[in-house]
């Protein structure tokens, strides 16, 4: 092997923190604190931008497992009974997609607020509240869908098709509730001028993913149930 002399470390400049912080943080990640724009706190932000992809991957694997279970279960027996999806699900789909739109508006407004654009300085959390309300409305709509199925005599154990309907929709709602918790966290941090941009972006990604996941589930339920 060739003899070499070590050179000083070569670092990707984009990842070098300015104050010797760990991680990939830096300036511009914080909502103004104490009235001083672009003021950063004493530590780099947690790497939530990576973490959210890890979380979404785990959620994807979980629903992939449920999907494969549905496909195998349907294909392995003769007891599968199809049923018509409750119509309110289509309205719920619209509500969830609309919440993604309002969240995107909120994210842009908060981002502009963080950059110090004065036109967005007043109550940047307004659209976050709207998104949160739409999310809650979606959860309520899902509950109505379950009651409608129950009224038809379709319970969790009635048929494998209804079993999968409840399992998939309830699991999705549990994840949506997690997203609602994330939105509350963002609103709270924003009100304290301590919101990190990464937290806002991660929450938005998660929420949009919930919308995409629901579209996928709707297609799955529509084709398979």
């Amino acid at each position, binding site marked *: *092997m060739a*003899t070499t*002399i070590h050179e000083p470390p070569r670092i990707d400049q984009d990842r070098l923190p300015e104050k010797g912080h*760990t991680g990939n943080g830096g300036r511009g990640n914080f909502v103004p604190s104490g009235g001083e724009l672009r003021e950063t706190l004493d530590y780099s932000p947690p790497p939530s931008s990576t*973490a959210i992809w890890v979380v979404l991957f785990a959620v994807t694997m979980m629903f992939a497992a449920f999907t494969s279970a549905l496909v*195998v279960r349907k294909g392995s027996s003769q007891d599968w009974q199809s049923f018509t999806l409750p119509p309110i699900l289509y309205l719920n789909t619209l509500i969830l997609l609309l919440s993604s739109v309002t969240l995107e508006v909120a994210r842009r407004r908060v981002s502009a607020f963080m950059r110090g654009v004065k036109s967005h300085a007043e109550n940047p959390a307004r659209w976050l509240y709207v998104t949160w309300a739409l999310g809650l409305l979606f959860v309520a709509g899902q509950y109505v869908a379950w009651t409608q199925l129950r009224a038809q005599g379709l319970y969790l154990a009635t048929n494998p098709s209804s079993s999968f309907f409840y*399992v998939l929709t309830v699991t999705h709602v549990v994840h949506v509730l997690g997203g609602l918790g994330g939105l509350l966290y963002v609103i709270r941090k924003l009100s304290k001028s301590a919101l990190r941009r990464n937290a806002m972006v991660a929450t938005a990604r998660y929420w949009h993913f919930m919308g995409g996941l629901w579209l996928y589930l709707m297609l799955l339920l529509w084709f398979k149930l």
Partner: protein
Amino acid sequence: MHDMSAQAVHHHAPPTSFIWKHVFSLDHKVIGKQYYAMALVAALCGMALSWMMRIHLAWTNAAIPGLQLLSPNGAPGGVMTPEYYLQLMTMHGTIMVFFVLTTAPFAAFGNFFLPIQVGAEDMPFPRFNMMSFWVTFTAFLVLMASFFVSDGPTLGGWTQYAPLNAVGSVAGPGQGMGVILWMTSIALFCIGQLLGSLNFITTTLDLRVKGMSLMRLPLSAWAWFITSCMGLTAFAVLLPACILVILDHVAGTSFFVPSGTVMNDQLLPHSGGSTLLWQHLFWFFGHPEVYIAIVPGIGIVSHILITNMRRPMLSQRVLIYSMGALAILSYMVYGHHMFVSGMNPISSLVFSFPTLVITIPATIIVLIQVFSLYGSKLRINSASLFALGFISMFVSGGVSGFFLAQPSIDIMLHGTYFVVGHFHMVMGVAAMFGIFAGTYFWFPKMAGRMMNETLGKIHFWFSFVGAYCIFMPFHYLGMAGNVRRYSTFVDDYLQPLIPVHRWITVAALITGAAQLVFVYNLIHSRFWGAPAPDNPWEGTSLEWSTATPPPWDNFGGKLPVVYHDPFQYGVKSSVGDYVMQASPEQVATEHEEK
């Protein structure tokens, strides 16, 4: 000597109260120790169960003192019933696979050392990290609680095959509440490990200190990173599988129970479920789980061998790629556990091919380790001995895997002790040796005191020889047709094999007793061992750059800067034959791999 250029940046203040400092701690080092302590208790429980099983197998009618207190119905007069044997076997497998082999090499050592090895002050999500341990600990308690329900723990084996796992107590003792507790425990365990994987991945990718490129990570850090990626995929699939089983139990669904199933003369009210579905979901987790247990061991012993050989591996890069290949291929081979399930023979062929292919990266890893050892002046100590033992067990157990990879042979051997010998050596003992090696190597840094080397070597030789005495005969038993999972061997053709079982039992008792030497060494050294210097093994990676034991923020308020690979040995520097990663000293080296 070290360039500490950064300022104090720890993002949560050190706790002062006992509860927040030692119980609900956010410090990754405390959490790592908590995982280790839990794994140690679990290992002792698992070993005690194996002792009882071995005594019963060798002397069927022997009363085991105290066993009737644990279960008056399962062991009347101290003699275990066949059902109770299966219950103990199930708990032994579950405890060892989940709460020892997964938690100790990955969660325990990884939690303590991964942030330090990458140069971080903590994991990025300390609260999730704390939750990870306490959810896992709750899972352990839930599992152990099944010993104390009316009909005891489940008897379905650690694989919990359907439909026995989903029909309730009609399938036997423990199949009601015992299964529900088992599934709840494992579901909680999955959540805990997912939280842990989240932290491990983000720590590795985002918290590396200045100068720490990916290729400058120690092999142990790489192993934990790869393992966390595997865990993220595997546990995210096992979790929904457990949920579906619980629903079959408590909600009357029929995911896994076929229609017309009659059990103990009862027609079960389920319809149309698929038993194979459980096997697919379980083994999609189950085979990667084998590598979740063993890959950290590969990384740990490689790290230890490099330090003690005073030279790098032949190729760090190839070793890393091989561990990655093991991780990816582990998802493509899971069907080899189902050769006897009645699956399509073409499917068996499809799963057989990657099963043989996966031996290639495994062989490359072993060859790199062995040829790196060739000609080296290895420093012999307890850690390096157990590292050598790891390679020995991994090879010995892995060779029998070649046979089992072929469906035609596996069908003959699958239900026999041959498989028991195979997986105990390649997954169980090898991983345990990785844990022991890591303990002897890192104990000084974790506890601030040295372990007793003489006791460590006694522990090694009894464990090494004992493990071969126990598990090699299993292969012979399997080839002789000795069926596994039987609690007694009453058939004529099995009678001549009973002396072999007695030999194994005696070996197991002696080898198990040797583990008590380790426990004594661990506890005694923790309080009365000689104070450990900061770098007792003359290592190069960042854990040896900081104080012993490491301060609250790992580096005393100033983060290191990394200038070198972690395997700069065999050089002439101001401190000896090595250059630490955090040393700016420039020396002529023969090794550079970026």
